């Protein structure tokens, strides 16, 4: 089977620092990594290939340096990669991103499954997976926590919802978006890294895809960011120290009194 995994390169947001004045992110010195939630998509795709044969193709839409993310995915065990990169894609929202990725997936063709991460840690919308499915007229099963079985024409999966797990049978080809619990991502191997270094990764621009120029990038995006600001949170905290045993007793008594005063006990 052929599995396509769209991955995004994102800044290491755990280490993100903000410019207090402009409210923008300081990008210098921030490492670019594979969106952590996409590692789960890569892992389950590799496992499915190992079990059922076929290949895993990773794709990423982004600037030329996003090729590094693709090489990392190859080092983990993916078979081939395509970078989708064009200045015309800049400023794309989830509509325009899904449009281009769907265009690239059509060009690859012959796929059985497209597996996305749950969401990207920078844009953080989780909209691109279902968006790709919609453009490709495919069914989508989101928040998949477990793949039970894969047959030629369908797969059976567990979908994490608010109250538990739905067991779904999904006709192939289909799009899945997966959550963390699906599988522990492996680390790249030394051999994988060597293979990744040598691999020829093609770049496709807008002209290589069947896409309409006015639907690309910022121009093709229905949404506009009009303001960025820093969140402010503050309450008046009644703070007590509890450094020794006696102070602990006192602090606990104060807390209990506080809670009783608020009718919380």
């Amino acid at each position, binding site marked *: 089977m052929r599995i396509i995994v769209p991955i995004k390169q994102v800044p290491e947001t755990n280490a993100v620092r903000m410019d207090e004045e402009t409210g923008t992110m300081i990008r210098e010195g921030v490492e670019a990594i594979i969106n952590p939630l996409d590692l789960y998509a890569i892992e389950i795709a590799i496992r499915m290939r190992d079990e059922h044969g076929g290949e895993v193709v990773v794709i990423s839409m982004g600037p030329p340096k996003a090729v590094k993310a693709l090489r990392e995915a190859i080092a983990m065990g993916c078979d081939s990669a395509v970078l989708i990169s064009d200045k015309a894609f800049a400023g794309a929202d989830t*509509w325009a991103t899904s449009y281009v990725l769907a265009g690239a997936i059509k060009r690859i063709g012959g796929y059985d499954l497209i597996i996305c991460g749950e969401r990207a840690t920078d844009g953080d919308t989780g909209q691109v997976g*279902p968006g790709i499915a919609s453009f490709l007229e495919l*069914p989508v099963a*989101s928040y998949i926590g477990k793949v039970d079985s894969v047959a030629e024409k369908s797969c059976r999966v567990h979908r994490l919802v608010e109250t538990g797990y739905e067991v779904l049978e999904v006709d192939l080809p289909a799009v899945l978006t997966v959550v963390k619990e699906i599988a522990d991502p492996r680390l790249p191997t030394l051999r994988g890294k060597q293979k990744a270094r040598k691999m020829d990764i093609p770049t496709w621009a807008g002209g290589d895809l069947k896409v309409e120029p006015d639907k690309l990038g910022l121009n093709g995006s229905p949404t506009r960011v009009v303001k960025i600001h820093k969140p402010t949170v503050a309450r*008046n*905290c009644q703070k007590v120290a509890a450094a020794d045993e006696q102070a602990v007793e006192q602090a606990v008594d104060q807390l209990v009194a506080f809670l009783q005063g*608020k009718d919380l006990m």
Partner: protein
Amino acid sequence: MKYSGIWILAEQDGGRVQRISYELLTRGRELAEKRNTDLTAMIFGHDINADDLQELIDCGADRVVAMEASELEHFLVEPYSACMLRIIEEYRPEIIIAGATSTGRTLMPYVAIKAHAGLTADCTVLDIEADTGNLLQTRPAIGGNILATIKTPSHRPQMATVRPRSTKPAAKQPGRSGEIIRLEATADLLTSRVRRVGFEASEESHSLQDADVVVAVGRGIKKSENIPLMQELADALDAALGASRDVIDRGWMSYPHQIGLSGKTVTPKFYLGAGVSGSIQHLAGMQTAETIVAINTDPDAQIFNVADFGIVGDLFEIVPVLTEKIRQVKGNG
């Protein structure tokens, strides 16, 4: 035809209207007043409880459009999106708001692509420009480090999802009236390449979001063997146990317990966090709690900025004493 009216996506489970629907009515009502227009609730399902539909009116909707068929009993992306697209075609809503639930987060992007609509995920604040009707959608981005305000100037409908529990559900207002339209969904809308063949309920994940009291464990707990310490406190308080992402990532508790930006939003009456630093991402999931209490060894921990009461000290010393004390007080009460 021009686009007008505010619409929300109400959700049902087993034919009963779900809480998120009433939260969306709160949001929708505010927008409808500002824009001076009608509020409609759409809902897809099978044999939906008639009293519940009336309650949507009682709680702020001017109109309810229910599309029903046995195939719509549970969420399936293809029939649900076909129904929503039919509604968009027929009624031309200016704005559609859904919950950022497993349903809303899947259905809305699927529909937005086909409707060529702008869609903003996980909004925390929604406002409207009265003259243009542009929806001002504010949401956390880049791991909650910033808030971005987004609008959709030239595409309609404008679509947004909002986090469950980020607003109070609308209350019944006496004397409201409105129209309830119940439609049988036609067969052309109902084909699906996804079939729901089973369901496995998990109670614990449900109770976290519904709990009035939440006890949260942070990395300060140091190892999974120490979790029972917090479980005992939670039991004494009759609370649901949640955790920060670090605790989940280390495998000390399972993912459904995660509170925060990439986990659950909780809005309990009372949240108590121990060994939680209060990262902006964690705060995104709990700062709307009515009363917040924090226990942390670090007097400068961020969590104290949002707390009403804080104890600076070692949770391993404090929590057992607190648990015991609460048991005593409750025992006597």
